[in-house]
C-alpha cells in the first residue's frame, strides 16, 4: 500500500515512540485535535497526555521546554504549527539549543518539526522556507526530505540523534506524493545526499519539494536529448559536499534550485562550495533558480510567479547546456 509523505512522518514518529519511551511530542493542537495538518492524529488516544503534550500558543516555551526535557535525557519532538512561527522560538533554538554542547558539553536531543513551503495560497505567514536561519547556526542539524521514504527515515534518524535537528517537512508534499515503503524499521542517515536521477550533461542540485520540480524538468529535457542529473540534498547541515562535488565533476555544469528566496539562500553556499572545490571542472557559470527576494504573496498569479517552476528550470537548463 502506498504511503503519503504525511503518513510517512506519522509512521516514523509512531515507531520511535513505540521503540523508546523517552520520545514524546509537544506542540499546539497536536493532542486532542491531532495537529493542524493531522500529522499527529491518533497519537493522543494511543500514547496518552503524558507523551502527547498540548501546549499554549507559545513557541518560545515549546522549544524552551523541549530543550529542558532534552537536557534531562528525554527525546522531545516539538511541532511548530507552521514553519513561519519558528521565529517566535528563534532565540531558544539558535542561542540555547544550538550552543549547549559547544559551551558546556550538554547534549540537547531535540527535533523541531517545521511544516514549510508554499503553493497552498497560505500567504506571507503560512508559506515560508526559513531554513537558512538555521543552516548558518553552528550546532544545529537541518534536514529537508523530498520523498516519503526519506521523510520517514530522516524523522527516525532525527529523533535518535543527540544534537538538535530542525526538520523541514514541505506541507505541499504532505498528501501530494506517495510511494511504497519497506516494512520494518529503517533510518536514513543525516548528512547524506542522494542522486535522485542520474545524468551526464548538467547537475540540478536541490532539496525539498523542488526535487520533484527538478525531476519533471529533467524528464522534459531528456526528450530534447539533454541528460540531467538531479541531486537531492536531503540534509542541508551537515552538507554532503562529496556527493554534490562528485556530480558536478561528472557533468561540469551546475544549476542550483530552491524554493527559498534568493539572497543568502542555500544556492549561494553551494556555489561557493563548488567554486572552491571543483572550479577546474566547470564548463559554465553556476546558475540559480530560486524565488525572488520578496515575501510570499497570497494571490494565485502572484504566488505562481514567485515559486520556481518546471518551465523556469527547463529554460535555465537549456541556456546552461548551450553555454
Amino acid at each position, binding site marked *: 500500500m502506498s504511503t503519503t509523505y504525511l503518513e510517512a512522518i506519522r509512521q516514523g514518529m509512531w515507531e520511535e515512540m513505540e521503540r523508546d519511551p523517552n520520545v514524546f511530542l509537544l506542540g499546539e493542537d497536536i493532542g486532542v485535535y491531532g495537529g493542524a495538518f493531522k500529522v499527529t492524529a491518533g497519537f493522543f488516544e494511543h500514547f496518552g497526555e503524558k507523551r502527547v503534550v498540548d501546549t499554549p500558543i507559545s513557541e518560545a516555551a515549546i522549544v*524552551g521546554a523541549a530543550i529542558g526535557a532534552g537536557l534531562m535525557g528525554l527525546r522531545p519532538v516539538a511541532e511548530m504549527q507552521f514553519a513561519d512561527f519558528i521565529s517566535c522560538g528563534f532565540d531558544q533554538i539558535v542561542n540555547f539549543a544550538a550552543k549547549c554542547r559547544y559551551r558546556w558539553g550538554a547534549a540537547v536531543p531535540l527535533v523541531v518539526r517545521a511544516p514549510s513551503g508554499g503553493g497552498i495560497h497560505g500567504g506571507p505567514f503560512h508559506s515560508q522556507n526559513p531554513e537558512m536561519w538555521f543552516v548558518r547556526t553552528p550546532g544545529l542539524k537541518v534536514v529537508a526530505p523530498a520523498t516519503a521514504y526519506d521523510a520517514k527515515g530522516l524523522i527516525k534518524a532525527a529523533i535518535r540523534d543527540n544534537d538538535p535537528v530542525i526538520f523541514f517537512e514541505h506541507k505541499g508534499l504532505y498528501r501530494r506524493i506517495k510511494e511504497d515503503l519497506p516494512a520494518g524499521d529503517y533510518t536514513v542517515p543525516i548528512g547524506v545526499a542522494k542522486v535522485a536521477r542520474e545524468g551526464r550533461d548538467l547537475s540540478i542540485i536541490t532539496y525539498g519539494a523542488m526535487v520533484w520540480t527538478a525531476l519533471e524538468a529533467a524528464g522534459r529535457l531528456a526528450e530534447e536529448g539533454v541528460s540531467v542529473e538531479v541531486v537531492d540534498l536531503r540534509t542541508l547541515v551537515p552538507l554532503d559536499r562529496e556527493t554534490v562535488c562528485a556530480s558536478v565533476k561528472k557533468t561540469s555544469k551546475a544549476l542550483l534550485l530552491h524554493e527559498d528566496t534568493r539572497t543568502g539562500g542555500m544556492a549561494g553556499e553551494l556555489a561557493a562550495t563548488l567554486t572552491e572545490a571543483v572550479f577546474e571542472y566547470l564548463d559554465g557559470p553556476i546558475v540559480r533558480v530560486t524565488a525572488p527576494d520578496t515575501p510570499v504573496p497570497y494571490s494565485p498569479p502572484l504566488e505562481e510567479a514567485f515559486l520556481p517552476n518546471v518551465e523556469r528550470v527547463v529554460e535555465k537548463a537549456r541556456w546552461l547546456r548551450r553555454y
Partner: protein
Amino acid sequence: MSTTPAIGMDRQPRAALAERCLYYMSMMREIEDRIERKLYRQGKIVGGVYVGRGQEAISVGTALVARPDDVMLPAHRDLAVFLIRGVSAGRIFAQYMGREGGVTRGRDGNMHMGDLKHGIVAIISALAATVPVAAGVALALRYTGIDGVAFSYFGDGATSRGDWHEGVNFAAVHKLGVVFICNNNQYAYSTPLSAQMACANVADRGPAYNIPAEIVDGNDVLAVYEATERARAYARSGQGPYLLECKTFRMTGHSAHDAAHYVPQGLFDEWGKMDPITRLETRMLAEGWAGQDALDRARAAVHREVDGAVAWAEQSPFPDPATLEEDVYESH
C-alpha cells in the same frame, strides 16, 4: 524577623544552618571580590564580570534547600548555587580567566556555565531564556518519576521578557514543579524598576498565572531559606510552580566596567546597612550561635580557601586553539 524556629528545627540545627549559610555567602563574596576588584583589574579576567554583591543571601538561602535530584538554573548573580552544588572555586576562577580548567573549558565566560553532573543548567545572555527551559526540566522530572523540582533564577528585569511569561504560563498550565526565584535588585543595568514594570512587585505577576507568589526579605538568608522550603514543598506537591520574590539591592554596577553613577548614593548607603553577611553575623552573635573568634576564624579560612583556588586557576593552561572546531556536534 520570626522568633519561632522553622518547623522541625531546634536551636542546634539552626546554628549549624547559620554556619553553612555564612560560609557560602562569605565564599561568594570573597570569590567575587577577587574577580572584580583584583583579577579583573590585573587584566586576568578576559571578559565581562557580573557579581551578586549584597545579594548572596538569595542564592545561598535557596540552593541550600535544594535536594540532590533538584535541578538548578541559576542566573548571573547566583554564584553560590555553583559552590553549594559542588563546583569548585578553582573551576570558577578558571572559567572567568578563560582557562582549560574552567567549567566551560574556555568556551564561554563568567557566569555562563553549567554542569549536568552537578545538576546545573547554564544560562545564556538573553535573560529569562532559562525560564521555559526550567519548565521543560520539571516536565522531564515528572515524566521520569524523579522526585525533584527545578529552581529557576532570574532578576526583576528578566520578568519583562516574553520568555519569562511564556515559561511561567507553560509551567502553571501543566502544573510543573518549578520554584521561580526572583532576585529583585531594583535595577536592570541602568534601568530602575519603575521604568521596567508598572506593577510594584514581581510577585504581583503571580496571580495572572494563578500561582502562589511570596515576597521575602532577600537580605535575610534564614528568611530566604524558610520561604524556599515552603516554595519547594508546594512545587513538589504537584500543585504547580511557586514564585518567590526576594527583595534586595545590587550593591555594584551592572558589571565591572559600570560605576553605576545613575544609582542615588542614598540607596547604596541605606542598603549597605542591610548587608546580608553582616546581618547574619550579628544574629549569630546575638543568638549565641557563634562567638566573634569563631567568626574571625571562619573568615580567615575562606580567605585561605580562595587563595588556593586562585592559584589553581592561574596554573590552568589556556585552551589549545586546535580544539576550536570540536564539540559543535556530537563526535562520531
